[in-house]
């Protein structure tokens, strides 16, 4: 295990963590502000990936496809909000789970019908292809570095918006006492719509930037949704900074764990045993982390202020 490999793993983990943050941010805001549990949030990630695939094929240019995909992701999110979700805010969580489960089934199948069940890939945009020399032995793909940069920029922008703008203030107020905010003359429904649209667009954006790295396939949003849930439990529901810390933590632990678990176990057990339990343990690590956090801090690492 060389230092170079460790560095690569850390960078990959950071990148995965930032991707998770983009998804978890929308999920945690939608839940924090509206108390709405949206299982279909992961599907927005898949939608983003398919959109960039379709628009790249259509326009032949990654950048125009990026703009078109973001707009479409926002519109699809708003359409879903208008057609289905806004009827569910007052309903029980069970109803919300069921209806959003129906939407997952529908969109996964639709993706399969439109694009086929096989995995698809798109090329990285030309300017960002290739790799750069980081240390003497370490070359790292530019595209991955760019996603780390964009992810960090998004995180900072989101944090500043929530903390220092009027909209951010309303979102924070709306998440604790929506009735009071409405009574003060704020159109709370419109606020919900903005939060929802932005959340959907962030998840779509995550799908877009993930598309050149990971495979595009139906159901790709389901697993990442569950990881995003783990992230917001660890971070504290409704908290953007919690989601950020937890996402990076989960990204790093998962990536490092998958590569190192077998190796570390082989110090203790003999190699055949390590080979057997290593992968199993690695895939369980983040859940074990979640369980541990729950035992010691049931409200998460950085719970949102005033969240009930």
């Amino acid at each position, binding site marked *: 295990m060389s230092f170079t490999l460790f560095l690569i793993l850390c960078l990959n983990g950071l990148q995965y963590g930032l991707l998770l943050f983009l998804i978890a941010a929308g999920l945690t805001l939608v839940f924090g502000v509206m108390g709405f549990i949206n299982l279909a949030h992961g599907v927005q990630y898949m939608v983003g990936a398919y959109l960039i695939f379709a628009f790249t094929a259509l326009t032949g240019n990654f950048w125009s496809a990026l703009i078109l995909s973001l707009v479409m992701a926002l519109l699809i999110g708003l359409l879903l909000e208008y057609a289905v979700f806004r009827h569910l805010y007052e309903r029980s969580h069970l109803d919300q*789970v069921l209806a959003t489960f129906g939407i997952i*089934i529908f969109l996964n199948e639709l993706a399969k*019908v439109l694009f086929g069940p096989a995995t698809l890939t798109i090329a990285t945009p030309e300017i960002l292809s290739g790799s750069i020399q980081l240390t003497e032995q370490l070359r790292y793909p530019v595209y991955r570095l760019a996603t780390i940069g964009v992810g960090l920029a998004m995180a900072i922008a989101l944090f500043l918006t929530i903390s220092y703008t009027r909209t951010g203030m309303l979102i924070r107020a709306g998440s604790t006492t929506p009735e009071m905010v409405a009574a003060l003359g704020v159109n709370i429904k419109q606020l919900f719509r903005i939060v929802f649209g932005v959340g959907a667009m962030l998840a779509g954006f995550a799908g877009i930037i993930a598309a050149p790295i990971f495979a595009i396939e139906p159901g790709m949003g389901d697993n990442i949704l*569950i990881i995003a849930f783990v992230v917001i439990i660890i971070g504290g529901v409704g908290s953007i900074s919690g989601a950020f810390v937890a996402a990076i933590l989960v990204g790093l632990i998962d990536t490092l764990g998958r590569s190192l678990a077998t190796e570390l176990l082989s110090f203790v057990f003999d190699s055949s045993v390590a080979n057997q339990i290593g992968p199993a343990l690695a895939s369980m690590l983040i*859940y074990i982390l979640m369980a541990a956090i*729950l035992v010691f801090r049931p409200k998460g690492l950085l719970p949102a202020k005033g969240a009930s």
Partner: protein
Amino acid sequence: MDRGVLIGGIIFGLLLAMPVILPIVGANYLSGLLIKAMLLAIAALSLDLIIGHGGMVSLGHAAFIGIGAYATAISLENGIEEILLLFLIALGATASIALVTGVLALRTSGVYFLMITLAFGQMTFFTLTSLAAYGGDDGLTLWSLATLFGSDIVQEGEGLYFFVLVILIFTWIGVWRISRSRFGRVLKAARDNPKRAEVMGYPVARYQLIAYVIAACIAGISGLLLVQYAEFVSPSIAAWQRSGDLIVAIVLGGLGSRNGAILGAFFIVIMEEFLSSIFHEWRLIYGPLLVLLVLYAKGGLSDLILPKSSGGGA
């Protein structure tokens, strides 16, 4: 006489008569479908105990089906074939895992509980896929099946059918008796107002944990029977979408009602069979149908049959 019992009686009467009726009308393939529906119904009944009666929305219940199924399959691979012994093994495995995950998950409630059960379910799923010695991702085909006192009567055909039916009836009676008992009433009190139940001196968390473990055990049994029926086991039976299907079944049927879980399970299995036979991409219909049902049909199927359902919903 209670109409819930009457409807339950009619359902079980029909199921008992099916092995006689089906060969006459020439629809033998249906008995496999009915076994599938009964297995789903057993798991759905157990989930209704915690969601309908206990108000704990778990989205990881299929994991216990998977644990029961894998405990059975692994024991069968190792030469344990007596079904009563397998019951004990499946129960032990599901109960112990449910106890650990339950203690952790019940530190929370509401949506947190939902997310945590989902995460534990997913953890189980990935653990099962990494069992390389027992098929990993691809699953495991079983060459030997369970026997009852050394006889192969419970392995296929009518023997298996009636065996599953008997267990379904026992589950039906058991879940209802639990929900009517003092234990069940405390559970419902905790669902409706946990603080008040706590103040009245009931250790709410302990009651909920016991219900969670009981439900997991029943789901584990349905996993055991699923192995016996399919002669095959794969991690996909523990996928979170299966947990979603179970929730669909109990909500469709009517939460906390006597026959709702059974009606919902049969409705799902039959509708899936029907839709997929006419339309390959049947999920394009199924998904929006769920959304419409949530938006416009509250109360579930048992309310359609029995408009003034006495079992309260959540």
